[in-house]
C-alpha cells in the first residue's frame, strides 16, 4: 500500500487536484444557477413548491443513470461529467436558497423599500445577506454530496479520483487493484472533510457578525 502511494504520488496528487477542481467549479456554477432560480421562484408560493419538488425528485435520479443518458448527446469526457455534477450540486442549494430567501422577515424588506432601496438593491443588500447562512448550509451539503458523484463521473472518463476506483474495481484480484480502489475512496473522503472545513471558514468570513449564531 505504502509503496503504491509513493510510486504513484504524482498521479494521485494530479487526480486529487482534478477532482477538487471539478467539484469546486461545478459547485460555484451550481450556486450561481441555484441563487438565480431561487430569486425567480421565492416570491411565488406555486413556483417555490415546484422548485422544491424538482429538487426532491432530482436527487432521486441515480447518478449512474444520468451519466449514461448524458453519454448519448455529449460522448465521453469532461462535458457530461460537469453537467451531471452541476445538476446534483444545484438541487440542495436551490432548496436552501428558496427557503432562506422566503425566510427573510417581510417587515425588513418593506423597511428597505420604504427608505428608498430599489428592488434589486433590496435583494443584494438585505435579502441575500440575510439568507446567506442558509444558502451556505446548502452549499456544504452539495459539496459533500458531489464529491461522491464526481467519482462516478470517471465512468464517462471525466477527471478525478474516480478513475482509481473504477480501474481498481475492473481488475479486482489483480495486482494493486485493492490499493487503487482504497486510495481513490480514502482520498475522496479526506478531501471532502478538508473542503467542508474550508466552507466553514468561508462562512465565518462572509457572514455578518450581526447575524452569526
Amino acid at each position: 500500500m505504502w509503496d503504491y502511494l509513493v510510486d504513484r504520488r504524482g498521479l494521485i496528487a494530479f487526480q486529487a487536484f482534478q477532482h477538487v477542481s471539478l467539484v469546486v467549479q461545478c459547485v460555484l456554477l451550481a450556486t450561481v444557477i441555484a441563487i438565480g432560480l431561487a430569486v425567480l421562484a421565492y416570491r411565488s408560493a406555486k413556483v417555490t413548491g415546484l422548485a422544491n419538488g424538482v429538487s426532491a425528485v432530482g436527487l432521486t435520479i441515480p447518478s449512474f443513470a444520468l451519466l449514461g443518458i448524458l453519454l448519448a448527446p455529449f460522448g465521453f469526457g469532461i462535458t457530461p461529467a460537469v453537467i451531471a455534477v452541476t445538476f446534483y450540486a444545484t438541487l440542495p442549494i436551490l432548496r436552501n436558497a428558496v427557503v432562506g430567501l422566503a425566510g427573510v422577515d417581510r417587515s425588513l424588506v418593506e423597511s428597505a423599500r420604504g427608505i428608498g432601496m430599489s428592488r434589486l438593491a433590496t435583494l443584494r443588500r438585505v435579502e441575500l445577506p440575510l439568507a446567506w447562512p442558509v444558502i451556505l448550509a446548502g452549499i456544504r451539503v452539495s459539496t459533500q454530496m458531489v464529491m461522491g458523484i464526481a467519482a462516478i463521473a470517471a465512468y464517462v472518463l471525466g477527471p478525478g479520483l474516480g478513475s482509481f476506483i473504477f480501474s481498481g474495481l475492473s481488475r479486482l484480484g489483480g495486482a494493486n487493484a485493492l490499493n487503487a480502489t482504497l486510495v481513490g475512496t480514502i482520498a475522496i473522503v479526506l478531501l471532502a472533510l478538508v473542503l467542508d472545513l474550508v466552507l466553514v471558514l468561508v462562512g465565518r468570513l462572509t457572514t455578518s457578525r450581526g447575524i452569526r449564531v
Partner: protein
Amino acid sequence: MSDTIAASTGDTTQPPAGNERRISGVSIRLEGVTKRYSGQGKPAVDAVDLDIPAGQMVMFVGPSGCGKTTLLKMLNRLVEPTSGKIFLGDEDVTGQDPDQLRRRIGYVIQAGGLFPHMTVATNIGLVPGMLKWDKQRISDRVDELLELVGLDPEVYRDRYPRELSGGQQQRVGVARALAADPPVLLMDEPFGAVDPITRQRLQDELIRIQEELGKTIVFVTHDFDEAVKLGDRIVVFDVGARVVQYDTPEAILADPAEEYVADFVGAGATLKQLTLTRVSDVELIHPQVTRAGADAAEVVRQATAAGEKYVVVTDRRGRPISWPSVAELSRVATVPDTVDEKLPVVGLRSTLNDALDTMLAASQGGVVVTGRGGVAGVMVVETVMAAIQRTREEVQG
C-alpha cells in the same frame, strides 16, 4: 445643527426663540386618495382628502383594519393609490419614481426595522449613501444623529442591532429615518413593541426632537393616549379610512364629533385630560440641588434653613442621580455619588399621566423634573391630584 437643516431654514446661529418654532417640514395634501384591492367590494381607502400643515405632528388613529396604515403607506407609495393625488408642498408626487420619493421621506416602523447584518452606523448611513454623499459627510452625520437621539456615538456606532435594547433599536430607527434630513417623517406604530416606561421615554424624546427640527410627521397609532400626548392634531378614522374628525387633541376630547369618536376616546376622558397637561404647565417645587462630592454638612445646613426634607443630587453634567433625605446626608461627610437606578425622572414636556406612572412605578410620592439646563424642580403627587380635581370640576360645572 446639520448644514442641511440650517440651509433649509436659512438660519445657522439662532436657536428657536420663544414660540417661533423652527420648521423644516413641508405640507402634505391628499386629494381624493383611494385604494381599491381587486376582489374586494369596498375600497380599503375611500376618496380621502386631507391637509397636513408643514411642521406639525399629525396622528392617525382608528380601529385596526380602518385603512390608516394603508393611507400612510400611500404617502410614500409602498402602496400605490388606485386614484387620487398626493402633494408634498406644491409638488405633485403621485407620478414620481417611488424610490427617489422615499429617499426624501423618512420611514420608521415597529422595532425600527433595522437590518440585523449591518452595524448601527451602516443602518443610519444607508439613505445618505444612496444619495451619494461622501464617506466623511455620512460618518459625521451618523454621529450627529446618534447624539440627537441620545446614544453615545463612541459606544453605539459599531454595534449590531441585536446588541441593543428594544428602546435603543427604536432610537436608531428614528435616526436612520432622519439621516438625509427629509422634510417628512412617516411613523407606523413605531413604539408598539416596547414596554410602557421605555415607550414613554421614546415619546418624550420624539417631542424634544420634533421641537428641535420641526418636521412634518405623520404617526399611525392605535393608542389614543399616545395620540393625545404627541399630536398637534389627530385624525380619527373609521372603516375605509373615512375621516371622522380631524382636530387638535383638546378639541377632540372636549367635543367628539360623533358617538363613534366618543366611544373611541373612551369613558375616562376626564382622566385623559391628564395626557393634555404637561409637567411644564403645573407648579413645581424647587428643592435644594447639589453636586455629588459637595460638603454634606454645608448642604444639610442650607436645606434645614430652607425647611427642606430632601435634596436632589446631580452628577458633574447636572443630571439628577439620587434624592437622599436630609437625615441621610447628615450621616456622611461628602454628598455620595451613588446612582439611584430607580430615581423617578421625567422631562418638562412629559404629561402628568407619564409623571404619575413614573411615580407609581418607583413607589415615590414625587418625581424629579429635568429641563434643558438640568434639574428644573420636583413635582409631587398632590399636584397631579389637584389637576384631576380641577378637570373633574370643569367637566361637571
